[in-house]
């Protein structure tokens, strides 16, 4: 078929491709309490992570001779602001280096809410398509009104029968239950003083989508890493780009698959992340690009997005969870 002579750019849809590594390996996620516990604690963390990072690399080498792995590290500046980039980042990099790890990309958690004035979290929220419980024939449940996302049907709120008697408790039901339900209901955001505060699992879901190369804004890539050529880090988090590239690695930030290393107290958060990813209708163009390129490299990705994320949950160093003041 011949190309049309007349074209209008505003009438066409284009999804720009992003470079993709094989694996995006998250070496850690730093919260204020981790920081307060001091550099030694961070050192412990990296020493533990190093072991698993080697295992993950070995696993990938079974599938490809020249694995492209990029490493990343996330710092929370969204829920609590602590320290400064100038003080914190060199310390993180030093402790990682001591354990023989290299951090290629570093991101701020608030970049998952808003990056370069683009409301990423808001956009992902618009893409939630709730898993329909049996019997759904076209009525659209208003996820955007409740701010909660579940994996099934909730317990009906206290209702009265026709005779006015209060009905007994009814159980919630997981839609994909096997024999018995594991029902989960995830808070996506809260409102305080007219400001929306995104929940940790929701921002972590955005973070996963970014690492999987599935986020776009009007067809353009978002949360694009900015080169940080050895300059000093600023004294204010807002002056640090949401995602920076710290090394000259050739492995791209986004990848076919992700692997995240974290203490086992994050299991519930990451389970919630999977629940969110499983009900997110991601950009179809981006989805197709990833599917085609991974297949061409003989490393086809699982069809469902949530299946592309893997985790290592390890035991925290003994003193950490009882850190003073938390």
């Amino acid at each position: 078929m011949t190309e049309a002579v007349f074209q209008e750019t505003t009438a066409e849809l284009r999804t720009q491709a992003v470079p993709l590594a094989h694996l995006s390996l998250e070496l850690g996620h730093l919260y204020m309490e981790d920081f307060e516990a001091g550099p030694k604690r961070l050192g412990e963390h990296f020493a533990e992570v190093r072991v698993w990072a080697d295992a993950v690399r070995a696993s990938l080498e079974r599938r490809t001779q020249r694995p492209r792995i990029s490493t990343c590290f996330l710092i929370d500046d969204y829920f609590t602001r602590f320290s400064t980039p100038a003080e914190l980042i060199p310390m993180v990099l030093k402790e990682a280096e001591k354990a023989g790890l290299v951090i290629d990309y570093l991101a701020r958690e608030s970049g998952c809410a808003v990056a370069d004035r683009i409301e990423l979290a808001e956009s992902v929220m618009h893409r939630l398509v709730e898993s329909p419980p049996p019997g759904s024939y076209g009525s659209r449940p208003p996820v955007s009104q409740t701010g909660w996302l579940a994996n099934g049907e909730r317990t009906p709120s206290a209702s009265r029968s026709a005779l006015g008697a209060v009905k007994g408790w009814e159980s919630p039901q997981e839609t994909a239950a096997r024999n018995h339900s594991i029902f989960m209901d995830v808070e996506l955001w809260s409102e305080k003083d007219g400001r929306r505060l995104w929940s940790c699992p929701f921002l972590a879901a955005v973070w996963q989508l970014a690492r999987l190369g599935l986020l776009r804004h009007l067809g353009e890539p978002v949360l694009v890493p900015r080169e940080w050529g050895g300059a000093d880090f600023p004294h204010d988090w807002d002056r640090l780009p949401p995602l920076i590239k710290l090394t000259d690695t050739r492995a791209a930030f986004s990848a076919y698959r992700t692997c995240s290393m974290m203490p086992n107290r994050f299991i519930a958060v990451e389970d919630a992340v999977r629940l969110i990813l499983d009900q997110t209708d991601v950009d179809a163009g981006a989805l197709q690009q990833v599917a085609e390129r991974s297949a061409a490299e003989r490393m086809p990705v699982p069809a469902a997005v949530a299946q592309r994320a893997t985790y290592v949950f390890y035991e925290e160093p003994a003193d950490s969870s009882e850190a003073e003041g938390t």
Partner: protein
Amino acid sequence: MTAALGQPARSVLACGEVRTCLLPSFQAFDARAAAQLLRLRADEPVRISERPSMYALSPEILTGVDCRLPASNGSKVRSVGTVAARAALTEGRLLQATAYFSLPAAGPDIRRPWGQYLVRPGLVEPFGKLPQQATVEGMLRGARRGELDLGMIAEGLLAALRRHALLDRRVPFKSSPTRLRWVARRGDQQASLVNFTVAEGGLRTMELRLPEHIPAAAAAGLCEDLALHDWLLTTVQHMLDNSRLGTADGPSVVEALHPVVVHLLHLWMPRAHVDPALGHLWDVLEEKPGFSRQWENLSRRIRDRLALQAVAMPHQALSTS
């Protein structure tokens, strides 16, 4: 993990419903306002085309369903998947909402994890084998209680758009919305129009045949185009019938026909935004009943009537009207 579950399913049917109505705004929308109205998603653009006529198309949004399919023979086939919905605005005047989906010949007997449905937007899978003929008839008849309801999804989108802050909810003239239900069977080499039925209560039904390589979205676009022109014919005919042209006196004729001239006459533009592979399906309707012929006839009647009025009226009366 199972390979069979991961395979993209080839569809054998595509079904949709289009609702067409006048945009509830006194002024027609320009391209910018149209883009704002149809921005159903923050991160996906509204497609705007200004030639040969202004046409804006929203991104598609999905609705999850898990219910029975309408079937004429009473078979109760549970089906799970997503229905796509989109809205279009033509010349800033006519608003349309479509809900549509495709169906494969068969599906697994269990429900998959939801994420696997989401990576195949607009596909609804039957449990087991799809009773094709019964489903075609059932979809055209419309959903019964508890059955997959495309009309409800299209109407839900339309209702949300009608509440948009940009709209003043004042219409320049009265009109009735129409709905068009369509079903396309896959597999033929050539796309063809099998049937177009004008039923009562603003309902139209349509049957198509579609080659496999033509996406369901293209069929939805064709059906929107036909629904839009059918709405124009229906509405203008109705206005002419109601204006009692033969009996009314001077100014009221101008008054009655004024909105047609200002808002509708220029909207007639068959196939303007239809996939070129489907444009020829218009030919059948041009042949019989002759959509454009009827439109030309209606336009001529309006123009003649207004010309007569101009001749009959004194010059001052015209200049003050």
